């Protein structure tokens, strides 16, 4: 019970945290890009846009930072057995994240926010790029730590039964990390682009500040089109890597109970949960699973049943992750990403014909599309983390054995309730601010972007 509750708490707080992280990664990069254009062209429109989207970024960073604190504390609070076991390896990237990424991000964000009229323009531009770099470094170290849980490398087990680091380089070149990190960075960019696109589309559709927001609609589409194309193939490659090191994860994602060669991919299926090994497949596409899982036309995929019997070497138990979650999370991600690709291509064509501002249907769809990255990001993490079960560290420690023995069920009920209530309040306030600011923020941004009167005291930022 304590273990289940601790898992619910971790899942809830992590999914929530990851609503904000990709927005920060994506928007920080796009805001830095806007400011670079302003720096190079001197066009005041770009300064206004930088301030406008910069404020949206700041509102998001605040909530991303505080919800990230929970993650850092929670390993020790709820998963002390895990922390004791892995700290010597898993803790190292977290400490490096603090020293290399968090200091950079927070210090330069302060310099950027308060330095508008105090720093030379080039230095000030450097500050927002340092923030963007900080967000990307932070994701890098977190993915390095997380990938070690998926595919542990560069460690040995010492006499006390704890994992200790033996090769830092192995963590850096861990294939799960390399591809997982690329996937998350691109997901951040896609998220940032879709947020920027939706806000721009909202203004364009209202025919308000049209010239201004046509620029950001264009920028987000120009970044989005190549990013989503690359993302689809990186995601595919990540699937191949996972099929190699965590075959259960991919077999479950296809609800593939029996071995197959070549393997087909079902567009939909009915049934196929834990006790249903004969689901009704709808629209099976021959060879597609072989290609996705092995990069070859006729590749073999080992089924869940055989893997389950092989895994008995770890001791008796059920080693099959939740098939329903796996099957649908990979599909939600792939289908939505394909839909976004089509939307982006349509946008590119409209841009080319210079009709972007006139297509009300396209702009409407862009506004709706703002929810999709959040669904895809969540689905991606569900696929990754639920697919690792029953392991907390693949092959080394099971989740069931990893929680804190000294923390009672009552205590976790209290903390879970407190976190959920706090997060509801934070989400409400964040949403109110984001929507209000998206709608009316341009006037604020114009005030902020106005050149300061010489000799006057600078206005208060907070």
């Amino acid at each position, binding site marked *: 019970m304590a273990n289940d509750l601790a898992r619910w708490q971790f899942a809830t707080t992590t999914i929530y945290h990851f609503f904000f992280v990709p927005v920060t990664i994506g928007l920080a990069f796009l805001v830095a890009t806007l400011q670079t254009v302003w720096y190079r062209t001197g066009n005041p429109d770009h300064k206004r846009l930088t301030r406008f989207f910069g404020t949206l970024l700041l509102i998001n960073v605040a909530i991303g*930072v505080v919800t990230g604190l929970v993650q850092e504390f929670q390993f020790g609070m709820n998963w002390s057995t895990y922390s004791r076991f892995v700290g010597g390896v898993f803790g190292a990237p977290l400490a490096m994240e603090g020293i290399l990424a968090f200091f950079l991000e927070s210090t330069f964000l302060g310099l950027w926010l308060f330095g508008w009229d105090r720093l030379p323009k080039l230095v000030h531009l450097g500050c927002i790029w340092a923030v963007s770099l900080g967000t990307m470094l932070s994701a890098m170290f977190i993915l390095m730590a997380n990938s070690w849980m998926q595919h542990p490398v560069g460690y040995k087990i010492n006499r006390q039964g704890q994992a200790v680091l033996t090769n830092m380089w192995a963590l850096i070149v861990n294939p799960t990390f390399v591809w997982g990190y690329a996937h998350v960075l691109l997901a951040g960019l896609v998220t940032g682009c879709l947020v920027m696109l939706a806000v721009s589309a909202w203004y364009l559709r209202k025919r308000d500040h049209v010239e201004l927001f046509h620029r950001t609609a264009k920028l987000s589409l120009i970044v989005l089109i190549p990013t989503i194309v690359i993302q689809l193939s990186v995601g595919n490659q990540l699937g191949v890597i996972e099929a190699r090191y965590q075959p259960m994860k991919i077999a479950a994602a296809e609800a593939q109970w029996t071995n197959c060669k070549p393997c087909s991919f079902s567009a939909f299926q009915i049934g196929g949960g834990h006790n249903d090994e004969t689901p009704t497949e709808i629209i099976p596409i021959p060879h597609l699973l072989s290609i996705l899982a092995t990069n070859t036309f006729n590749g073999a995929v080992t089924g869940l049943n055989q893997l389950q019997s092989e895994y008995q070497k770890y001791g008796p138990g059920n080693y099959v992750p939740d098939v329903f979650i796996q099957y649908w999370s990979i599909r939600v991600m792939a289908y939505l990403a394909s839909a976004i690709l089509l939307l982006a291509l349509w946008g590119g064509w409209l841009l080319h014909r210079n009709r972007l501002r006139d297509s009300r249907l396209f702009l409407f769809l862009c506004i709706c599309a703002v929810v999709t990255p959040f669904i895809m990001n969540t689905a991606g993490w569900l696929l990754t983390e639920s697919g690792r079960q029953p392991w907390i560290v693949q092959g080394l420690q099971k989740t069931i054995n990893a929680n804190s023995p000294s923390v009672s069920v009552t205590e976790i009920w209290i903390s879970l309730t407190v976190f959920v209530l706090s997060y509801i309040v934070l989400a409400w306030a*964040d949403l109110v601010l984001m929507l209000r600011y998206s709608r009316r923020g341009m006037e604020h941004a114009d005030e902020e972007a106005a050149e300061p009167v010489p000799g*006057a005291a600078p206005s208060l930022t907070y």
Partner: protein
Amino acid sequence: MQLHTIWFVIIAVLWVGFFVLEGFDFGVGALHRIIGKNEIGRRVCMNTIGPWWDGNEVWLIVAGASMFAAFPGWYATMFSALYLALVLLLVALFGRGVSFEWRGKREDPRWLAGWSWALTIGSILIPLLVGVALGDLLHGLPIDSQHEFTGNFFSLLTGYGLMTGVTLLVLSLLHGATFLALRTTGEIRERAHSVARSIGLIAVLVNLAWCVWTLVVIGGGTVPQPTQIFGVIAVIFAWRLATTDNDAWAFVASGFGIAAAIGQLFIALYPNVMVSSTNHAFNLTVNNSAAGHYGLVVMTVVAVLFFPIVLLYQGWSFHVFRKRVSAPPTSSA
């Protein structure tokens, strides 16, 4: 010196850095309603720490992550033992963390007052709770031979732990008041001076009592540590200087006072990292809770290469925004 001792020192330095820097942020947050008095004054107070508070808070995150990486056993036992206290700490960090960025984005008086109170309460709770946690490390908590905590929430409320929390809160308030006196002008500065004067006296007395209690807890007899003597003198200086125009020196003195407080805790703790009140044989020490040698080497290299750079750019940020903050003459919001 052995690597795990070096990492104990690094972690102690990170905690000292956290309280010297974030200590004044807590003081400013807790006092901004009183010293700021009206909306503009409160905003001036918040803006004095505006560019820095987030970077200052990272010292806490890095301290925690370093404990995880260098002493997994310490991190695991401490964070699971302090469970409910940390939940409360996190809620305080939520409210305070978002209040800076969110507060001024709407003019609704209830919105402003709500986030202002979140900032005040958070800034009071955090040093108090962290103080209880650090005091408990030294005082001892019920910990068994497997290094598992065997108590409950109420076992955390040790007299010495609570006193440590109160001491760190009072020192943070003094540090915040001397900081505001240094960073503002006019009426706000005068109010900061008068608050620093009254808190200063309380801080001198509380700090002295707490130092004596520390001696009792560690069984140190009647001979105080040099750090303790230094700390007591520094706090007295901060109190006396707060009545003069030497804003910078008063701030330096309160900074040294808070640094000495954290410093003496960690000096008294070594070579333990967490004392067991059940049996001293079950104490967590730098030896029995440390990570492997190679891991510590890698982290030492990273810290030696990059920490000086961090200090440089954080120092530069303090230099950039060194001017006093005052209200814009025309502002009406």
